[in-house]
């Protein structure tokens, strides 16, 4: 069977480039490596570094991974993600209102049902904000 022709518009968006993309936001370098490290830490249960910060890109990667129904190996990982999200949002200088908006939009599920976890998760994430 020969290769199916793909519409060039579709191809422009979905075909993964081998070389680094040219049109990246500033500071967004080594993107695939960052995501690989992040996923490795998350899914393989690596010990998180308390000094590690997550930038918005990694935060989005987490959120998307969670949104697509990916689950994590244990509650420790879930709590680690929760802590990292909280640190990321607070250390990133976002206000409580901005953090609330982000968390609500992400609708992040953890282990357990969304209905059971979400209100508690939201409260835990918002606790400790100083702004």
């Amino acid at each position, binding site marked *: 069977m020969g290769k199916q022709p793909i519409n060039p518009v579709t191809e422009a*968006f*979905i075909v993964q480039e081998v070389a680094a993309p040219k049109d990246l936001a500033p500071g967004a370098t080594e993107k695939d490596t960052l995501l690989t490290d992040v996923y490795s830490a998350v899914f393989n249960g690596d010990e998180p570094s308390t000094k590690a910060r997550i930038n918005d890109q990694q935060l989005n*990667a987490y959120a*998307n*991974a969670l*949104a*697509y129904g990916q689950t994590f190996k244990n509650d420790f990982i879930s709590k680690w993600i929760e802590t990292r999200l909280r640190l990321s949002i607070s250390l990133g200088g976002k206000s409580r209102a901005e953090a609330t908006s982000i968390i609500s*939009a992400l*609708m992040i599920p953890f282990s357990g049902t969304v209905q059971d976890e979400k209100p508690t998760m939201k409260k835990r994430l918002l606790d400790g904000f100083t702004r």
Partner: protein
Amino acid sequence: MYIQQYPIIGIIGDRGTGKTLLMRYLASAYAETGLSIVGNFNMYDLFYRKAGMKGAMNHVDQLKDCVLFFDEIYNDADAKDYFSKNNKAITGFAAQTRKFHTTFIYSLQLFFTVDKRIRSFTDYFFQPEPYEGPDAKPGDLLVRVFNAKAGYGNDFVKELVVSCGKYYPLFDTDELIRTDDETWEDPGLKPPPNLPKEKNRKKNKKSP
């Protein structure tokens, strides 16, 4: 890696992040490649057919080589109505768009509000947001592309910046999308709403 010729694409993002703007951009881009455009929202300065979800489902014989654009799809396939005949029909329709040679593109704000089966059939997710990098212009979008069928941790495909500024006036950001819409209009070109109106011509008729 197998790449779908007629993919199902979800455009996901919070309110105001550029989902409909990206759809409007894609509509023009696909139209330039010779495909017909069908959508459930107003797209000005584009020859296309406006149709609701039910309208499109009732006319599958006319969807060959089309690109379908359904904005705010949870209006039609709410996750809370998972067991409804309506949702079953819509997901069955979406799952078989490949047979009509149709590309199916929808937008959603919150992931879990859309019927799970549609999300499961989705091949790619595009996540737009306003681009704020150097030389950013109004309407520039940073679009993150995710392969919805990839294995865990491998779904990120790429990021790209798309210049959509010229399409700002070519759709109505305040348009309310109807639920259960059976609209199936004739294809045509909708002019942008800011064009001069007919009253000037009437004034000329009255003048000596």
